[in-house]
């Protein structure tokens, strides 16, 4: 427990000192501000491009458009930034040998894995919360009358998928020696999830539904309860990834 807290403190310190935390927060803050703005301005930009003779009918922007931007940015750019920033979470410490010192001081390997995961989850939570908060404030300001359903639940699903992705990332970094290997394995698993999603029957249970069905939830074309099994599966898979990471790392030759 000593080791876990001390190492968690070190991890957070590292995120702030190496600007990783700042990069995450800035990227997600930019998304948060631009999501509703883009939704609001896009029709006007397109409108200004219109010349005589061409008539494009552009529907009035709604809060829904702002949230479409939010889920699109977070699930694409947001996840990519997060995965790339975290891909060296273990490999850099192992290749440089900074971890050896601490392990030979009696730091348990389980504590290393758990505190690294905790820190990544904290950073992810802070980033998504910031992004959500900014988008929410601006959306309410720009589109005050629009009504949205299942918003919090939808964001929660996205957050849960982030947790799953980070657990997969950590397992990949335990399995591979380099940060590229870690990226490759994580990418392969995400692609595999996407491929599985082409089978309609699997969609209900696939973790990736948590990051794909968000708009459906908002427009009520998808019922909240249809995602419960995917949530359960994601949580179980995250736990499994964590357990495997710990077990494999404990037996790894360093």
């Amino acid at each position, binding site marked *: 427990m*000593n080791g876990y807290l*001390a190492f968690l403190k*070190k991890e957070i310190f590292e995120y702030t*000192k*190496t600007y990783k935390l700042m990069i995450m927060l800035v990227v997600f803050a930019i998304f948060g501000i631009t999501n509703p703005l883009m939704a609001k301005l896009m029709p006007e930009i397109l409108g200004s491009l219109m010349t005589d003779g061409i008539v494009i009918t552009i529907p009035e922007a709604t809060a829904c458009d702002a949230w479409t931007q939010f889920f699109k940015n977070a699930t694409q750019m947001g996840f990519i930034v997060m995965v790339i920033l975290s891909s060296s979470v273990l490999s850099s410490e192992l290749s440089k*040998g900074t971890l050896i010192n*601490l392990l030979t*001081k*009696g730091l348990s390997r389980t504590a290393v894995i758990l505190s690294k995961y905790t820190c990544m989850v904290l950073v992810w939570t802070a980033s998504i919360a910031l992004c959500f908060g900014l988008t929410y404030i601006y959306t309410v300001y720009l589109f005050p009358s629009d009504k949205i359903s299942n918003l919090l639940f939808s964001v929660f699903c996205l957050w849960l998928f982030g947790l799953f992705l980070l657990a997969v990332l950590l397992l990949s970094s335990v399995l591979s020696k380099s940060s590229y290997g870690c990226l490759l394995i994580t990418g392969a698993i995400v692609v595999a999830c996407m491929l599985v999603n082409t089978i309609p029957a699997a969609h209900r249970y696939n973790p990736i539904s948590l990051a794909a069905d968000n708009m459906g939830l908002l427009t009520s074309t998808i019922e909240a309860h249809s995602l419960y099994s995917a949530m359960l599966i994601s949580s179980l898979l995250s736990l499994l990834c964590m357990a495997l990471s710990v077990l494999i790392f404990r037996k790894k030759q360093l």
Partner: protein
Amino acid sequence: MGVLEINRLYKRFGHHEVLNGLDMNVPEHSIFGFVGQNGAGKTTTMKIILGLLKPDSGSVTVCGEKVTYGETKTNHNIGFLPDVPEFYGYMNPVEYLKLCGEITGLTKKQIKRKSDELLELVGLKNEKKKIGGFSRGMKQRLGIAQALLNEPKLLICDEPTSALDPIGRKEILDILFAAKGKTTILFSTHILSDVERVCDHIAVLHGGKLVLSGTLSEIKERHRYNGFVLEFENEKTASFFENIGELKRPSISMSRSENTVTVLLSDRGMNGQFLIDLLSQKRIVPLKFAALEPTLENLFMEVVR
């Protein structure tokens, strides 16, 4: 009972047999020089002691506790200095020692006291710079400070001096020598003069096992030649001594360089007394009369051949 006991240790990487039934015993409060060529298996042995590598067979005990691979409790008794220690470049020495202290479970007060004391010892007390800007020697010294932080019963240093300049080397050796008495030091190296300077026990690793081990004086005693060095006032006397008829026999070999004569006696029945008698008989007073000491280098060459 030794602080560190290694029994019948085997380890191979692929087809390469690194350790081949290694037995070693490090007594308490010794500075134990662990000598071997590059690639002899010194680092492998140390990593096994630290539970970082899994031995194929054999056992290691530290302070009476058995080392288990992976998570091992025995590391609480060990301080480790890797050959090229790496730290988090964004921390300063005090922050790094604080992290180490928290991991070992020291209280805030203890951490403060110990870090002050150790940074003083290794000469980094007023260093506020980030570790990222440290030279190799400074990193090595910080490495010693972090290794001694938890007052280990066994301090393991993996080639602590091999990458340093002569001044850096002397400083590290002095620090290690100062730590003697508080802890037992296992110290791997291939620099024999370092061993002679600080170690009291020595073991030579070759072909996966120890080919030579014991205290330094014991080993030298065991390998003493029946040879003497005589230094004379001038070349004329030296040359006169060299050509004395009594010394012209097959069991005596001599060599002279300027006014120094080296005499090797291969006849067991003959000793220094014979030479002294001869000197007195011929009424020659040498400037120096010394028994030939075996150098560690010669011994090393002999056993690893």
